[in-house]
């Protein structure tokens, strides 16, 4: 705990004394050299298009992902979010065995990460994402507006500067899968408020809110 806080103490003397009492809220997105370097690097979308070739065998051309949720849509996601998640996967902060060999240091440089993120952020998001059964949309909307919109935006557009992902345009099955992992404590790199917000959700509630998110209009950014 203390060692995780030390960088903060050096940077912001006030923040850490508060954080020591409970898990530091910054821990979910604590800086580490590689992520910091990737965030600071200037991404080049043209180079990113080329670097993304090793990703598109799974995430598909145009980074549209798969409606079955096996691979998320990345098109239109905030570059900051993409960099954090990619860096977290390859540093072991987020578990993803399928992806790891394609994201590790043999596969990608730090500059590649910045380039890929710049490329993906600018990609168009067609309204072709997979949707749920549509049986509980009223409840899904109520939950989203009560618990989710404050961070992810009421249109699901996310907040790049705060590393909150865009959820509009995402496949329902992927949202549901990750929602379950977060609720069940298996996404280790998640904001504590995110985990707390859905900690008591039933499977049905997760389903309803995922279906609502997957139906949000994709135009919103």
């Amino acid at each position: 705990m203390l060692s995780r806080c030390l960088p903060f103490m050096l940077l912001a003397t006030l923040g850490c004394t508060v954080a020591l009492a409970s898990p530091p809220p910054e821990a979910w997105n604590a800086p580490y050299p590689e992520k910091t370097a990737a965030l600071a690097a200037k991404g080049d979308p043209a180079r990113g298009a080329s670097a993304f070739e090793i990703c598109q065998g799974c995430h598909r051309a145009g980074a549209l992902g798969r409606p079955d949720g096996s691979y998320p849509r990345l098109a239109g996601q905030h570059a900051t979010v993409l960099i954090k998640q990619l860096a977290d996967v390859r540093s072991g902060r987020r578990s993803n065995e399928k992806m790891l060999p394609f994201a590790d240091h043999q596969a990608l440089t730090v500059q590649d990460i910045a380039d890929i993120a710049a490329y993906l952020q600018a990609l168009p998001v067609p309204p072709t994402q997979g949707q749920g059964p549509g049986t509980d949309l009223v409840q899904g909307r109520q939950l989203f507006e009560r618990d989710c919109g404050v961070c992810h935006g009421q249109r699901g557009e996310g907040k790049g500067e705060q590393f909150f992902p865009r959820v509009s345009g995402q496949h329902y099955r992927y949202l549901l899968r990750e929602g379950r992992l977060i609720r069940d404590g298996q996404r280790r790199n998640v904001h504590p408020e995110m985990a707390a917000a859905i900690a008591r959700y039933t499977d049905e509630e997760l389903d309803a809110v995922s279906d609502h998110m997957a139906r949000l209009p994709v135009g919103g950014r």
Partner: protein
Amino acid sequence: MLVAACLLCPATLSAADAGEIARTVCAACHGLDGNSPDPAHPKIAGMDQEYLMRQLKAFADGKRRDETMSGVIVSLDPAVFAGLAAYYGPQKPKPGQVKDPQLAAKGRAVYEDGNTDTGVPACAGCHQSDGKGNARFPRLAGQHQAYTLKQLADYKSGRRATDPLMTTVGKRLSTDEAKALAEYIAGL
């Protein structure tokens, strides 16, 4: 014969020399035009020159091993590698032949979609739908089935360690998927 060919190698090599080596050494297996007649040896016609160079260096460094090629490579001066790549790269590739269309259809599914359960990416993601590859990823189209199969097996076993991503892919592919892919790729 190979040793004899090398005894003739001069210390410095021109493009003409590379052509001569291609014709007298490489062509025995790969064919004069790079369209190997023997399924055990790859067609290299039309492959990206940088890719060919990388493979020659990998054989020379021992990162890639092959009963025939590893023996031949030691007889070649590395100075000739670029000339050999320049000789074979621009050659016109000849199409392969699908022998089992049903198997090829299964291969197409893996080639275009991968396997989401086992994390096999679609081959098309890197090698392109038409299998022609690009500067970064090699051409596969029209390759001999036996050769493609052997490479996938060699990646799986670690015998070929030229690309960590392909090592991962080789390990994730089932034997049936590899056979189907080899059949489909032959027809590209």
